[in-house]
């Protein structure tokens, strides 16, 4: 089977289609626009819907309405758009609305540089919403990940009824690459769990140790309530501290306690290495080149590539870092995800390489940090 030449953003679109996405809405913004272009090509001819909102707030609002009506939805933007999404993201978190949100990161802050890459939104994606509850963030390394992780993102959004972010980067999204579409290891598609037909429907009701409420669509035969207000299981406003606490705790644990089930990563192990490089996104590619080039040298390093960033896959990081004395973290910002490593790996020496100048971190820069530890 032959290779296909495809941009990262196109792969996100095709991956979304393969995952069953049938509703997309977005507002044009470089470097995310080509996702919208792709969805406009893919969805309407096959009975799906692709809309251009009057702004980012409308675009994600369309998605939330459609998602609650039973559709599999996605929106895509860059940092400035994520800022505008913020209030709607909090809504999706608190009211358990499945949606995939692609952030094709560009150099910030603010308007920043439309055509320069960065990973400057990595903490923002987790914390840029009110209420402080967890979200899922996956980070693609290459065009292949753009396809496969988008599918995973849909599965997770459906399974856990929550927003799932794809933390892409201009450098992955707008880079055209060859991909072997027929050789991909694709996940099975999972959907929302529908409520039993013979039981009364309680919109946010859970039984026993169930973490995620069963779903029914707005517009179906049984009445559905959705609300952005603090609600009880019945979907009506509540002021009962007990009910509120149970709901908050469920929203917190439904992702934090299950993260081992969706901890995606890659690794490159080098025997005799005393250093572990940890990277994500496009920087993981420079890191791979760096550790391979140093494979035969006296200063060796292994590599852990994180693809699930939030909730922090603590178990994986602790386990993978255990054999090493030192950890090197490289990321395209001035020190964001490294904070999580510093929090977790208190007994390790952690060296950090950050860069925020619109350029890729080069393998040589990472080699230098490995060498000089």
């Amino acid at each position, binding site marked *: 089977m032959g290779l*296909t030449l495809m941009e990262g953003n196109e792969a996100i679109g095709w991956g979304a289609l393969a995952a069953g996405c049938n509703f997309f809405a977005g507002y044009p913004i470089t470097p995310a626009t080509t996702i919208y272009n792709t969805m406009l090509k893919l969805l*309407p001819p*096959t009975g799906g819907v692709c809309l251009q909102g009057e702004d980012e707030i409308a675009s994600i609002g369309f998605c*939330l309405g459609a998602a609650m*009506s039973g559709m599999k939805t996605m929106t895509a933007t860059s940092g400035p758009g994520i800022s505008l999404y913020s209030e709607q993201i909090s809504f999706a978190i608190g009211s358990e609305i499945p949606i995939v949100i692609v952030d094709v990161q560009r150099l910030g802050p603010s308007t920043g540089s439309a055509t320069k890459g960065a990973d400057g939104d990595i903490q923002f994606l987790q914390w840029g919403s009110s209420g402080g509850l967890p979200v899922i963030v996956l980070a693609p390394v290459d065009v292949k990940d753009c396809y496969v992780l988008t599918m995973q993102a849909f599965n997770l959004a459906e399974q856990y009824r929550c927003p799932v972010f794809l933390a892409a980067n201009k450098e992955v999204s707008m880079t055209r690459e060859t991909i072997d579409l027929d050789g991909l290891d694709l996940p099975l598609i999972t959907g929302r769990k529908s409520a039993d037909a013979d039981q009364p429907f309680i919109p946010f009701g859970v039984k026993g140790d169930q973490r995620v409420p069963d779903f029914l669509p707005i517009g179906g035969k049984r009445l559905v309530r959705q609300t952005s207000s603090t609600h009880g299981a019945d979907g009506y406003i509540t002021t009962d501290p007990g009910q509120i606490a149970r709901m908050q705790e469920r929203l917190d644990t439904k992702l934090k306690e299950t993260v081992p089930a969706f901890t995606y990563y890659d690794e490159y192990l080098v025997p005799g290495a005393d250093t572990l490089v940890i990277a994500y996104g496009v920087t993981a590619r420079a890191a791979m*080149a760096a550790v391979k080039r140093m494979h035969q040298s006296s200063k060796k390093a292994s590599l852990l590539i994180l693809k699930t960033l939030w909730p922090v896959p603590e178990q994986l990081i602790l386990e993978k870092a255990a054999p090493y004395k030192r950890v090197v973290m490289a990321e395209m910002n001035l020190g964001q995800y490294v904070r999580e490593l510093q929090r977790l790996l208190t007994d390790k020496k952690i060296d950090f390489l950050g860069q925020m100048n619109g*350029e890729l971190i080069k393998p040589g820069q990472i080699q230098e940090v490995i060498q000089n530890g």
Partner: protein
Amino acid sequence: MDSLLNSNRPSVFCPGCSHEQVLHALDQALTSMGLSGEEVVIVSDIGCSGLFDTFFNTHAFHGLHGRALTYATGIKMARPNLKVIVTMGDGGLGIGGAHVLSTCRRNIDLTLLVLNNFNYGMTGGQCSSTTPQDAQVGSGFLNKLEKPLDICQVAGAAGAGYVSRTSTYDKGLVEGIKEAIAFDGFSLVDIWGICPGRYTRRNKLTPKSIEADLAKLPDLSDYKTRNARTEYGRAYRQEAAKLQPAADPVRIEATCTSPEPGRREVVVLGSAGQRIITAGELLCLAGASAGCHAAQKSDYPITVMRGHSVSEIILSDTEIEYTGIENPSVVIALAPEGVNRRKKMLADLSQEALVIKAAGIELPNSPASVIEVDFKAEKIKPQDWALGALAVLAKQNKVLTLDMLKAALKLRFRKAEYDTAIAMVEKAAALP
């Protein structure tokens, strides 16, 4: 069914609140139209109008301030048969103004009931986008400085096909709401009423004064004919039905042989209009036609018709890790705009590197070997220089072969374009 109101959740509006009348009028409208709860969704905004969904036994969606129309649009596109009613106050109109305008322009089949009581009741009676300038409200003198909005005129100007004004005292309120719901497109009903908790404590407003004020406003009947058109969702589906599904992404069979092993980096430096990005894509396709992995990054300003255009291509027989350019084996230099963007890279070129440059282009000194091509003298147009340079490169059997380039043209172009491109390649390859 007599009523869609939820008997377990009686309304909680202040005594004398005009919302109470709208609540019952909406209920009567829905029931007299024979609609059952599952055929209706009430999408409510924030503020006292945001309580509406909780009083009905219908589908319900309550979201953020000013954004109700956005959810309603998503719901209607997903569920075209559902009756979608949006309740919003004059506050929501202001904060969600862009959505109101766009919904009018779209003409999607939603009914927006504006519960207009001239102030923000829930937060302390501050001024809204409809507060009269002479009113006493919770915003001090600020409302004196801002002209109130006639939402009906705005909506009509924005393309709403159904716009009407009424008050909670109007005997025709139920019929008015029914007509709006029955309208096949976006309908907006501006319903004036009293907020006894805040507004009428300091402002005199009576059913009579409201009626008199409404009578002074311009007539709206013209919009119905002026803005008449197909409902958005139906028009969308009609347009979509004309489209062909996208073709499956092309799989490129490896029919050629690459002239070199390993990783090869090529940088094409030019200006807008020289088809630099297309040349980069062709090089990737050429690589794939020899079973190579390929990656392309492009750099150009937002003004796509002026300025530099740079394409960086990597071909490799193994998977490409780092996608940056470290040690280019070939540079194609076609315009000073592009060259100026990569001066340092050009000065650092190695001895093994090859530069193909258009005649007249000045380059920093480097040990790289240089082939100069006088495209102008050969009467090759600037938009073909990049393709011409690829042909010159292919003739050297460096990075790609002529077979690979021809395979790429076949993948990229339709027949007529292909024939022209092949002719160009053959012409350039024949250059001395």
